[in-house]
């Protein structure tokens, strides 16, 4: 399904059927007026429920965004990315890692001990963190130099393509994909593609070009463990995450070590270097 620059899934391929922005790669020619345009098979689609996901469509047209005043639709502000769901019930600390309208509140570090095992989906709304005094200071914690190296991997791509259904047709291995290195720091490093509309600014931003169409906006999270090592959690990405040839379960932290390969999307491979 085509995705517009603002991150909406669109049933039309020329312009987004939610916000109207031109979808990259849509031919200029399709903008020319004419008869029944072939570019928009879904022109009658809005009559049948529309493209919005059920929960978003069900949201009543409420008052504008409290932060920037833009009209509201869906869970996140279209303009500033504020998470309304997090705003509404308990606008307290740790509520908005994603949008960060409350810079005073430091994002709560993953609770010590075994907490990250299941409950750690950091960007979700108002985490039930009740310990107000952060025991483990989130600042410069002792971190040996861990690095994630992002590259396009031909072998993984071929395997993905071979195993994929018709969805994958049309996805091509990028002709040029420079290696990118991310120094792991802070309590967590999110992996994904930034989305202003959804308020997602991942620390490891895989937005291209080349953009891997199989990478979710929030695909996986690297979480610092109390012992200084790192784990990876897939919070529920669309296409899953593979660590060393094994797909990991959603919401479960998988410890990482030097040399581990995290595969996601169609061709993206993160190699973890611990030194």
């Amino acid at each position, binding site marked *: 399904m085509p995705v517009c620059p603002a991150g909406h899934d669109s049933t*039309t391929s*020329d*312009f*987004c*059927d*939610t*916000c*109207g*922005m*031109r979808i990259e790669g849509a031919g200029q020619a*399709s*903008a020319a*007026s*004419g*008869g*029944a*345009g072939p570019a*928009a098979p879904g*022109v*009658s*689609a*809005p*009559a*049948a*429920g*529309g493209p*919005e996901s059920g929960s978003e*469509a069900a949201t009543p047209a409420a008052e504008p965004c409290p932060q920037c005043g*833009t*009209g509201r*639709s869906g869970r996140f502000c*279209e303009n500033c990315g504020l998470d309304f769901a997090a705003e509404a019930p308990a606008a307290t600390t740790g509520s908005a890692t994603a949008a960060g309208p409350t810079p005073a509140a430091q994002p709560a570090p993953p609770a010590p001990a075994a907490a990250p095992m299941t409950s750690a989906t950091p960007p979700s709304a108002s985490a039930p963190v009740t310990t107000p005094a952060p025991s483990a200071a989130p600042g410069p914690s002792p971190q040996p130099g861990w690095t994630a190296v992002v590259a396009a991997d031909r072998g993984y791509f071929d395997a993905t393509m071979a195993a994929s259904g018709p969805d994958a047709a049309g996805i091509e291995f990028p002709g040029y994909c420079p290696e990118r290195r991310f120094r792991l720091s802070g309590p967590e490093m999110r992996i994904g593609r930034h989305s202003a509309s959804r308020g997602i600014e991942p620390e490891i931003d895989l937005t291209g070009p080349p953009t891997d169409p199989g990478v979710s906006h929030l695909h996986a999270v690297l979480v610092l463990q109390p012992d200084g090592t790192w784990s990876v959690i897939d919070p529920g990405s669309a296409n899953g995450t593979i660590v060393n040839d094994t797909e990991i379960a959603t919401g479960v932290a998988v410890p990482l070590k030097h040399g581990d390969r995290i595969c996601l999307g169609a061709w993206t491979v993160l190699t973890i270097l611990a030194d």
Partner: protein
Amino acid sequence: MSSPTSPSDFTLEVFQNEYLPEGGREVNAIVTVTAPAAGQAGGPAAGADGAHRAEIIIVDCSGSMDYPHSKIVQARAATTAAIDVLRDGVAFAVIAGTDTAKPVFPADGSLVPASAATRQDARWAVSQLRAGGGTAMGTWLGLAGRMFAATPASLRHAILLTDGKNEHESPDQLGQALAACEGVFSCDCRGVGTDWVVAELRRISTALLGSVDIVADPAGLAADFETMMQAAMGKQVADVMLRVWTPQHAQVKFVRQVAPAVDDLTGRRAQSGPQAGDYPTGAWAGGESRDYHVCVQVTAAAVGQEMLAARVSLVAGTEVLGQGLVRAVWTDDEALSTRINPNVAHYTGQAELAQVIQDGLEARKRGDEEEATAKLGRAVKLAEESGNEDTARLLAKVVDVVDAAAGTVRLKRAVAEADEMALDTRSTKTVRRKN
């Protein structure tokens, strides 16, 4: 009944200046919609497609139709002329309207297919029409609506002829009747003489997607009815909607038909999806072409960005007959963003022309000569500039034109009532831009 034309043959052309300045939000476009030519795409031969058409002629038989007597005489002749034009197989009926509504032919309140025999019977029934009673148009339309609803025909059209005010029911009753008839059938209205009210008939014709006109001299009725009926017989596709999709947080400021006549459809929107609304356009004849002015207010985007401000499509039922795209591109080049599309400018002028004529006549009735002179002077100027000669001619019967280009006029002391009403009814007629 399947649609007799290949639907995809409708074309939509969009005329606009898509460039907006930084922060600009209003997007204007003229959309020209053209139906496929008659007989194209395997349509049935003319005359063979009567079965999905239905026609009802509503004749005012109130007492005033006898003063002068020629009105009822000519009304009968006109109804007969219209019946003669009916194609074989078209279901038809005639209603006599007074303070009640009575089916004249057939007497049982049904519709019968036109044939030599039924036409003969109808002519006889019409010749028996006598004037006497009141005027309750809502009741007439209500009966027509119920009769149409009982037919399987998809192209349903009525002609309403009256000579007077809607005296025997309240405006509310008329409004309720219209609401019940909207979407059931279309109705062309004709006022004979000068004792009827333009606003009243315009209200009916607007709601029921038809035309309104004055036939000042009853002798002209027969020819007018024949023309109307022929136009009705030319309609090919029924119940066509103009669907306007707009992006999130955008607002449709207005959607109006601007050619062949101004008709504001903004209030007729029926939501057809989370971001789309349908505006009724009624039935279309082969080769028919109309222009629509769509104005959308969008959320401004950054310079260099492009947005779809509206996806305008023509739909009949679930079928999409054609579509056009209205775009917005933000630019910091003022040479681009300050241009006004000539079609948009032209039709903005034509819509204003209709408005200032109606305002001017209204002011004149009130006795506000200053206002009337200003408005009608503006109208003369707009008509001159746009080359709307018919309207210019009608204006010249109401005002003395001193300088058309400057819009300098003097109100005429004596104006024939028929001329004033003709100007009012036809004020909405527009001309296309001359290239």
